[in-house]
């Protein structure tokens, strides 16, 4: 036994200075965000299903895409949304966008610019996509829009052009004209209205991009197959980044959080080892 006034190594380790613990947290989190390493990453069933859904869309298909991301949810959903667009445009899919959130239109512009960077080519308005703009009225607005697109928008897109001036838009006038669709609903925490208003009446296969906290509300629809797949929050974004081989910020963030957890686990294990070591030496420990 050591002398009374002197602390053993284990006792010192037990009162490890909080600043050292904090500094290591700083280092771990920023390191993995900035330099994400590609580790074999277990992809959840949700992410895999979503990826398969995106992959299953045939070449040249015309699809609908409701994008209502908000600035506060953007860090979580950006990667999943942008990479979905990239995957689709690689297959020359033509996309009809609309937004049911006033924040949507400027974010859409950002996303298209980011997708162009990843894609390595410019996408052309009217050829690769059309933006029908902000549709007000939440659920009733969405229902009316999906019932009769020209009726609600007056046949004009977000820039005031006649949508019939684009050859491929001629046959599109309701939710049933799309076989595939996506909705990015940010954090609504409600029963997904696009299942009710889009998938159920028109039978469109829909994929969802949503926050992790919305997952409990939609698991039911995932189980019944009414939602074909979900990119579930930050983890969903990370999984899509991993599956498409575009490792980036979301993956780094998930990795950082995971390694934060690993670090915490190591701390707790070491704390317990030190605790029992010190106890075995017969010292009063707290």
């Amino acid at each position, binding site marked *: 036994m050591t002398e009374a006034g002197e602390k053993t190594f284990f006792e010192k380790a037990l009162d490890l200075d909080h600043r050292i613990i904090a500094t290591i947290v700083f280092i771990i989190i920023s390191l993995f965000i900035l330099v994400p390493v590609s580790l074999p990453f277990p992809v959840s069933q949700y992410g895999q299903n979503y990826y398969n859904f995106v992959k299953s869309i045939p070449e040249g298909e015309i699809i609908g895409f409701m994008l209502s991301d908000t600035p506060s949810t953007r860090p979580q959903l950006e990667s999943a949304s942008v990479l979905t667009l990239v995957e689709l445009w690689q297959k020359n899919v033509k996309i009809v966008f609309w937004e049911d959130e006033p924040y949507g239109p400027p974010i859409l512009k950002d996303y298209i610019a980011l997708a162009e960077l990843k894609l390595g080519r410019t996408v052309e308005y009217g050829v690769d996509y059309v933006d029908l703009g902000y549709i007000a009225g939440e659920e009733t607005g969405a229902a009316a829009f999906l019932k009769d697109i020209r009726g609600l928008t007056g046949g004009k897109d977000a820039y005031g052009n006649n949508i019939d001036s684009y050859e491929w838009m001629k046959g599109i006038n309701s939710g049933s004209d799309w076989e595939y669709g996506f909705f990015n609903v940010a954090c609504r925490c409600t029963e997904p209205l696009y299942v009710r208003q889009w998938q159920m009446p028109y039978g469109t296969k829909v994929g969802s991009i949503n926050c992790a906290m919305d997952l409990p509300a939609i698991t039911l629809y995932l189980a019944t197959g009414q939602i074909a797949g979900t990119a579930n929050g930050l983890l969903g974004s990370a999984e899509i980044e991993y599956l498409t081989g575009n490792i980036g910020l979301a993956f780094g963030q998930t990795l950082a959080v995971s390694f934060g957890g690993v670090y915490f686990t190591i701390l707790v294990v070491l704390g317990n080892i030190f*605790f029992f070591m010190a106890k075995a030496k017969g010292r009063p420990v707290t």
Partner: protein
Amino acid sequence: MDPELYRMTIPLYIVTLLGIWMTAEYFFPFLNPLVPASDAIRAYASIAEGAAWGVGTAILTVAHLRRIYRQSKDPFWGYSVVYCVFFFVMFLLGIFEGLGGANFNWLLKWLIQPGDMALYSTTAFYVTTAGYRVFRFRNLDAAALLISGMFIMWSVLPLFTGPAPWIVPIAGWINNVPAVACYRGFVIGVALGIIGLSLRVWLLKHREVLA
């Protein structure tokens, strides 16, 4: 008239009267004609609360001004200057530019909001250090905290659920069974505590609630 009556007793009776009225109106339909009045009182109460922030803010600012004034007594008066500069800049911008002004919003967007996020996220560090201190197998109680805490944390991190998928159902069970039982008991206790406290206030047994 005894000053104690209108200074203390009548306000206390107001609390009792309003409390019993608002509670009773929920159960007895014959009180329905009074509902608009009670709604109005609650609306008035929240409007009046808006004015209350001035007292504390003014005293805080005076405390800082006093520190500046008594420089020699407090070596930290320099920070009070920083406080006063930023307080009055924000205050005057708000007064002259309005709450939506460009400069006001600049301060809000680039100093207040990032600062708030940064401070909120410091909890991560505190949770880590507290966990290091607390999550030890001292006795059965600490073990309960440790085991359920670790399983739940692992269950949401893909690095753990990948190699050990059996964590997820265990964590799900902890979340759906003991945690539900815990908070059910906790919430029932709190509710009875609230009723007891309210009743003691209404019976004028806690005179300190109005100081």
